[in-house]
């Protein structure tokens, strides 16, 4: 078996909300297993509705949350194993890009401070002159230059430009994995594609894998190699982007695909759209069963196991819409 860059093994995370009396538990991430191979860079998209655990999963990969159950391994180092954890190396290997570029940077600091801090404090560059060279080179790769960025404040840039700077900052450490949490959600349509194309180019140029979290299925289709669909914390479908989206195997993926406002394909009128319910988090059977048009008694009783559909595809459903090949 090939060496894994990132391996997520049956990971769960539970949050307790409410006060003493009205205490509730929410299983934000429920038994998720995913992996990314080392050696071959990929873009893995995680899609799903808000509240499905996309960001929680992300934060666990970034070590901002500790998983309750299961284990996450990065290049053979288990997250729970304190001895093999090297914070410095970890920061060089994994870098985040956040959602809203206007909130990523402080109003009071010049934007280049962030770039210099990353370059100098993580010890990538010894001197300021060295840092200048590295930063300028990296900024050129995202279509900007140090001359333009130097000494300017956040308000002097547009959202697209700021997002490019965040990407450049993440790239300074030559990471192996970049976690991009909704990186284009706050960017205008005319500039969105420039950023998304950048991911594709950088993947090849820097040999870096991306975990791209989004609810925008059309950019996910465009950019990603693999797609994982989350629903209520659980991973319900995984597979190569094109096959998964052209022929969804899970009824929820199908519902999601039919709800995207596409250009060139008008909605058929009045398909029933059941609303989401909070109690679905607590279900022990298939969590999608209450909304699923194909649900049977079996679905309402047991939790489906992961079914391998062949061709790198996986689905958690008793009645997958695609037969095993």
């Amino acid at each position: 078996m090939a060496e894994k860059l990132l391996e997520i093994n049956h990971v769960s995370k539970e949050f307790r909300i409410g006060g003493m009396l009205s205490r509730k538990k929410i299983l934000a991430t429920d038994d998720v297993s995913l992996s990314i191979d080392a050696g071959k860079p990929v873009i893995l998209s995680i899609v799903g509705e808000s509240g499905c655990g996309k960001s929680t999963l992300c934060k666990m990969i970034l070590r901002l949350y500790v998983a309750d159950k299961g284990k996450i391994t990065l290049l053979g180092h288990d997250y729970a194993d304190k001895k093999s954890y090297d914070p410095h190396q970890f920061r060089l290997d994994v870098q985040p890009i956040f959602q809203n570029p206007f909130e990523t940077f402080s109003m009071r600091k010049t934007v280049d401070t962030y770039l210099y801090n990353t370059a100098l404090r993580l010890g990538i560059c010894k001197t300021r002159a060295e840092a200048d060279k590295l930063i300028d080179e990296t900024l050129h790769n995202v279509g900007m230059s140090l001359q333009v960025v130097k000494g300017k404040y956040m308000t002097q840039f547009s959202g697209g430009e700021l997002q490019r700077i965040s990407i450049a900052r993440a790239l300074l450490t030559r990471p192996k994995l970049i976690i991009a949490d909704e990186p284009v959600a706050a960017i205008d349509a005319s500039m969105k594609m420039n950023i998304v194309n950048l991911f594709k180019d950088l993947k090849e140029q820097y040999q870096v894998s991306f975990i791209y979290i989004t609810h925008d299925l059309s950019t996910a289709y465009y950019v990603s190699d693999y797609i994982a669909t989350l629903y209520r914390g659980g991973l319900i479908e995984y597979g190569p982007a094109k096959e998964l989206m052209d022929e969804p195997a899970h009824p929820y993926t199908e519902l999601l695909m039919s709800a995207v406002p596409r250009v060139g394909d008008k909605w058929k009128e009045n398909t029933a759209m059941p609303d989401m319910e909070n109690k679905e988090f607590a279900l022990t059977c298939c969590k999608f069963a209450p909304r699923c048009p194909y649900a049977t008694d079996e679905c309402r009783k047991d939790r489906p196991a992961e079914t391998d559909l062949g061709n790198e595809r996986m689905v958690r459903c008793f009645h997958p819409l695609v037969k095993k090949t």
Partner: protein
Amino acid sequence: MLKIDHLSASYKTIDGNIHVVKDCNFEIRDNEIFGIAGESGCGKSTLLKTLYDIIEFPLEIDEGKVILSGTKNGQDFRFESGEIRKSWWNQISYVPQAAQSVLNPIVRLKDQFLDSIPKESKEETPQQTLARVAKYMEGLNLSPDVLDAYPFQLSGGMRQRAVIALATFMSPNVVLADEPTTALDVVVQRGILMMLMDLQKQFKNTLVIVSHDMGVHYQITDRMGIMYSGSFVELGPTEDIFEDPIHPYTKMLIGALPRVGDKSQKVGIPGRPPALKNPPPGCRFAARCPKATDKCRQDPAPEFREIRPGRFAACHYLEPEVN
């Protein structure tokens, strides 16, 4: 019908005026869904505010006016900018941006409904008004139990539906919706857009939707206008615009849309929209336009005119086609 007559509006600031809406001249017809698309900061929301006549300092109308006219219950009406306030709820209503957050979280929905809905007759008790509301909500597939809930107990989509129900309860002739589905999931978004479409079919009124999502416009609007930096660059039937855009900006924008089922290489538009404080003379898209010439950069902004029947655009290099 809403007629926008050479409307310009600006925000007054100490540093000078910011011209957010510049010389908009078009009509929104009766019984249609009209979409307004554009990037953030292009003046979509400000235009909608002037249509609804929420003109408060620092926003001011510099030139032109909005005329709202039509027939309701057999009576003709006509309001101009400055008087449109009188027609609120009855002839025109507004669903503001982030409508999920406009409700007071600690007041029950029914009390908030009673605040805005006038009595049918003097003798009507609040219970009777609420019964009317409950009946109306049932027609929209919304459980009347929602009325007894506090807004914080409802999901974002549910609140959005309740706000739309409130805005359309008096069956106004024009409903303005500012980004009605932003911040909602695709599945919920679809439910809400379907609800808006059904309402429009039922009342045969005018629905104006502002959204930055071109997919939303394609799905539900009949006609749409595309704004760039304060003014319209193209306006026409939605399907025609998507099939055959004529303005260079629209062409590039539609070419850049990612589509499911299409992995071919797409490129975005380089550059950024001009600052609205000191906009460049001439066409405001000139700096990003591949076809721009000195004429575009120096001559006054191109006129917004009918290029083909029913299709308007503002570009020096588009000549009206004579049939």
